[in-house]
């Protein structure tokens, strides 16, 4: 789910090789280089930034924290990574990646042009991954102008297909990240009470995730009257008795993201709030039941929306359509939102081994609302929760 991005990824930044072994990367590189050759390309240029770093991290484990990084993957041989640090910081940067050839840049276009020329690719065919979608237009125009004889061709889809299927190591890291989210929600429950501000609640949630070695931590909230309107970053609003609090939390660990959320009530939930929470829970369950390899991603949205029809009268009139605007389900892994997005009519087939984040957000009348989330893994027979234990959708506090 989209959150307010930060000026810096500032959590613990290391490569925990017990969790993500170096052996993971050579086969990935080999697969990509095979794809490069199959496409009759000479190399791929892969761009990532702090916002969308998944393609680069898949091949390097490197995590850009502010400015972008550019990876040149030749059809054969070793890749080169351009990172936005000074030369004194290159030894530290190398501890975060399997790539041997890590070079600093101050101005990306000039360094990129030099690198591509150095590799003898000034007249080559180069596939592009993440360039159009993420690289600043000025930088990209300068690179193209500096290499007028290169044939640039899109190559995003291949890497996205490789990334969709999570292996056992990735699932293990995703479970770790999901554990941070679970612990953060428990910390929220501990901290919740009348008088506490949304920001103070965030402090408890954020502290839990960062002490657990999250590289990044995000939070959205809707409390009191806002529970009937929309999620937003926490602010100074003080919680009051009877408030409904919708809390969405995301944590990144060793480059992998997990999301989660719960509905809290400061006191006893009324009948409408219970009905909304039950509907949200059932919608998530319906999506889980509909998720199987080969099914179109849109089938999840259809399943959720069919379940939610009965609760329509309880939704706030002006915001009734917004429950789907957050997205109902999407892939999750090295990027917090990966394909496919489960929108009605989306025909992309779900693949075995993929991980999907499901979230149903309902904004009701008079400050009521509910939020239910679940992360699932698709195996041969269907879907199972990423974590064995499931948290309750609705929690009454105090």
């Amino acid at each position, binding site marked *: 789910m*989209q*959150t*307010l*991005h*930060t*000026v*810096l*990824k*500032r*959590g*613990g*930044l*290391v490569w*925990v090789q017990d969790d993500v072994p170096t052996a993971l990367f050579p086969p990935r590189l080999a697969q990509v280089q095979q794809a490069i050759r199959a496409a009759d390309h000479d190399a791929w240029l892969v761009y990532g*930034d*702090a*916002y969308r770093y998944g393609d680069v991290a898949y091949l390097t484990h490197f995590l850009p*924290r*502010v*400015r972008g990084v550019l990876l040149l993957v030749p059809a054969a041989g070793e890749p080169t990574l351009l990172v936005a640090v*000074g*030369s*004194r*910081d290159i030894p*530290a940067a190398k501890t975060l990646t399997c790539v041997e050839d890590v070079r600093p840049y101050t101005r990306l276009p000039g360094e990129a042009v030099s690198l591509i020329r150095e590799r003898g690719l000034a007249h080559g065919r180069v596939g592009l991954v993440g*360039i*159009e*979608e*993420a*690289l*600043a*237009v*000025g930088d*990209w*125009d300068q690179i193209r102008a500096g290499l007028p004889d290169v044939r640039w061709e899109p190559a995003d889809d291949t890497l996205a297909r490789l990334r969709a299927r999570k292996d056992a190591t990735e699932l293990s890291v995703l479970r770790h990240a999901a554990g941070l989210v679970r612990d953060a929600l428990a910390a929220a429950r501990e901290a919740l009470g009348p008088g506490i501000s949304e*920001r*103070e609640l*965030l*402090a*408890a949630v*954020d*502290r839990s995730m*960062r*002490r657990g*070695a999250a590289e990044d931590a995000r939070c959205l909230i809707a409390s009191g009257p*806002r529970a009937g*309107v*929309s*999620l*937003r*970053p926490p602010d*100074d609003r003080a919680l009051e008795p009877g408030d409904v609090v919708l809390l969405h939390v995301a944590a990144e660990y060793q480059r992998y993201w997990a999301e989660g959320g719960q509905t809290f009530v400061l006191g006893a939930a009324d009948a409408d709030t219970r009905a909304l929470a039950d509907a949200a829970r059932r919608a998530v369950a319906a999506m889980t039941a509909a998720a199987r390899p080969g099914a179109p991603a849109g089938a999840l949205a259809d399943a959720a929306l069919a379940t939610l029809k009965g609760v329509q009268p309880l939704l706030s009139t002006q915001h009734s359509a*917004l429950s789907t*605007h*957050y997205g109902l389900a999407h892939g999750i892994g090295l990027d917090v939102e990966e394909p496919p997005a489960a929108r009605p009519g989306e025909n992309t087939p779900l693949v075995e081994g993929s991980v999907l984040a499901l979230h149903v957000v309902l904004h009701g009348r008079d400050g009521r609302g509910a939020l239910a989330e679940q992360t699932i893994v698709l195996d041969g027979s269907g879907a199972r929760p990423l974590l064995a234990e499931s948290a309750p959708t609705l929690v009454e506090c105090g």
Partner: protein
Amino acid sequence: MLAQNDVVADLRARLGRVQAAMAERGLGGLLLYASGQHTMLRMDQIMYLADVRVLGPHGVLVVPPRGEPTLLVTPAWDYARVRELTWLAAVEAVEPDELPERVALHASDLKDPLGLGGQQGMPAAFARAIGAALGREPRDADDLVPDLAAARTPVELERIRRAAAIADQGFQALCQAAEPSLREHELAAEVEAAMIRAGAEDNFGLIGAGAHNIAIRAPQHRALERGDVIVGEITPCYQGYLAQLCRTFILGEPTPLQREKYDLLMRAYEAGRAAAVPGRPSGEIARAINEVIGAAGYAEYCRPPYMRTRGHSLGLGAVVPYDLTDDSSPVLVEGMTFIIHPNQYLPDTGYMMLGDTVVIRADGPESLTQTPVRLYWKDA
């Protein structure tokens, strides 16, 4: 604390200056772009005029030559927050793929040439989409707003002052929490939590530790040890505005050598402050600092790769005077805010940090961060 009326008056005055500059350049309109990626490295031009940070991935402010701008943001579900936070009457929240057409619609009455600002952060695909939707090529006006934003307005300065106070609280939390066996990322988490409670909505925060640091870095999982030198670059954001504090904390009593070298940093800092007066080029600050450190025998450590800059602008991302280096030329004016930091690697002690956010006054710099300038330590 400023009243909402004062905030709106301040924002209207900014808009007036921007529209006057548009007229001087002969622009028929101005499009300002901001992505969801907030950064200290470039100014958030939408925030400057609309007073709200875009969730993203894209936001565009359509500024007419006269009258109020229209703010278009993504995602659609963020409408209520944006509506509540901005003073502007015209707000639309749409899905990302709808945005180019909506921008084109709102810009359709604006005459050529149309200026474009904030494109440093605009992805290529979005640039092509908006170009196609507009059916005309906007003129580069990326410098228009930053050039007008060199000096802080009263509202901006109040927010930076609040951010600076939060930075002071963050450093207090560091001093209290630091202890042997606590891991670096756990220490960072305590600092972060203290600042969030104090009102921080973001932080460009780096905390590193070791017996001999090479540079400031992100926290790692390493456990703190007695004798560690902890360096902290603490940069909270309050209502969109950043302030920074740099200090050094030793887990144990400092050695005479550490005290001596930190005294050198403090002398360099004072020399830098003395050069920070209106009418003088910002490069004089860096040269004054380097002169003190160089005279002590460390001239080679005043250059890359050991040292990059002696400070930088702070507030709403990068604005004038940008980085403080020997050859930086912007002339200091009253109301500029930036950090002066003679942070330095020394072969004897490793990297140590010292720096405060200041605002330039007629008679020199006023510190906005209030943490006393000294070396910090506690018995471990």
